[in-house]
């Protein structure tokens, strides 16, 4: 059972590697992988698709910087942040803005599991934790 799950994960990982172009998820490659799975259904295709979906979602999240903001943010600032994250992680990262008034003012950038924050809410939270 554990060995089958491990094989499923390994197969899903191989499919994910086929879906990447220059470290980023390619829509065309993903479509091709899905078409291949449609034509040649392996055993436990449902588990493989779930693992593949999870890996693709993680890869997309790692290639995307979600910038939460309170107040307005310029497109140039969004582009600068994406460029800075691309330099930091060594792979192309795109930026997407998401409004979050709970921040009061400032930004919170989420890349995959990493979070970078410079906001009034964050500083207030640090203040509360320090007290």
């Amino acid at each position, binding site marked *: 059972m554990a060995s089958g799950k491990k094989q499923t994960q390994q197969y899903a990982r191989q499919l994910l590697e086929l879906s990447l172009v220059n470290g980023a998820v390619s829509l065309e490659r993903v479509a091709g992988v899905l078409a291949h799975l449609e034509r040649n259904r392996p055993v436990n295709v449902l588990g493989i698709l779930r693992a593949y979906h999870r890996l693709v979602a993680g890869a997309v999240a790692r290639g995307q910087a979600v910038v939460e903001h309170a107040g307005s943010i310029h497109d140039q600032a969004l582009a600068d942040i994406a460029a*800075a994250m691309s330099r930091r992680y060594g792979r192309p990262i795109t930026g997407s803005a998401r409004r979050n008034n709970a921040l009061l003012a400032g930004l919170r950038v989420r890349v995959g599991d990493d979070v970078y924050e410079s906001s009034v809410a964050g500083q207030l939270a640090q203040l509360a934790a320090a007290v």
Partner: protein
Amino acid sequence: MTLPLFLAAAQGAAQPGIVETFGLETKYIIMQVVSFLIVLGVLYKFGIKPVTATMEERNRKIEAGIRHAEEMQAKLAATQAESALIVKQAHGEAERIVDEARKTAKDFLDKQTQEATAKANDLIAKAQQATQLEHRRMLAEARAEVARLVVTTTERVLARKLTDADRAAYNDAATRELTGV
């Protein structure tokens, strides 16, 4: 008494008068001597000898009784001395046991006192520690509550007071900070 008279009569035989005067005759004298010896022998055998033996026996018994009494007295004295020694030893042993019991009781009392003191100190220390922990916990809770109230109030005030221009300026500063990561 008879023999001197006989001798005197023999000496005076030359001189008539004494033997004849007293009517002494040799055969009577010899018979009286033999009779005396016979009586003496009978008396010695059946009177003097048994009496002497009886007296010697009684003397031996008396001496044995005296020796026995002396021995008994000596034994009594020895027994009394031994009893006195035993009583003295028992008295000393009793004093030693009493002293030892007192010492043991004192040690036990001291030990119990020390243990009770240690337990009391331990209880006091634990109570003080619990009080301190409770005090710190209350202070931490109060501090956290105050901080939460301050932060909540500040958030509400800032949410009302911050203008779009303020937020834009803060976002620019945040952008510069994050791009410098």
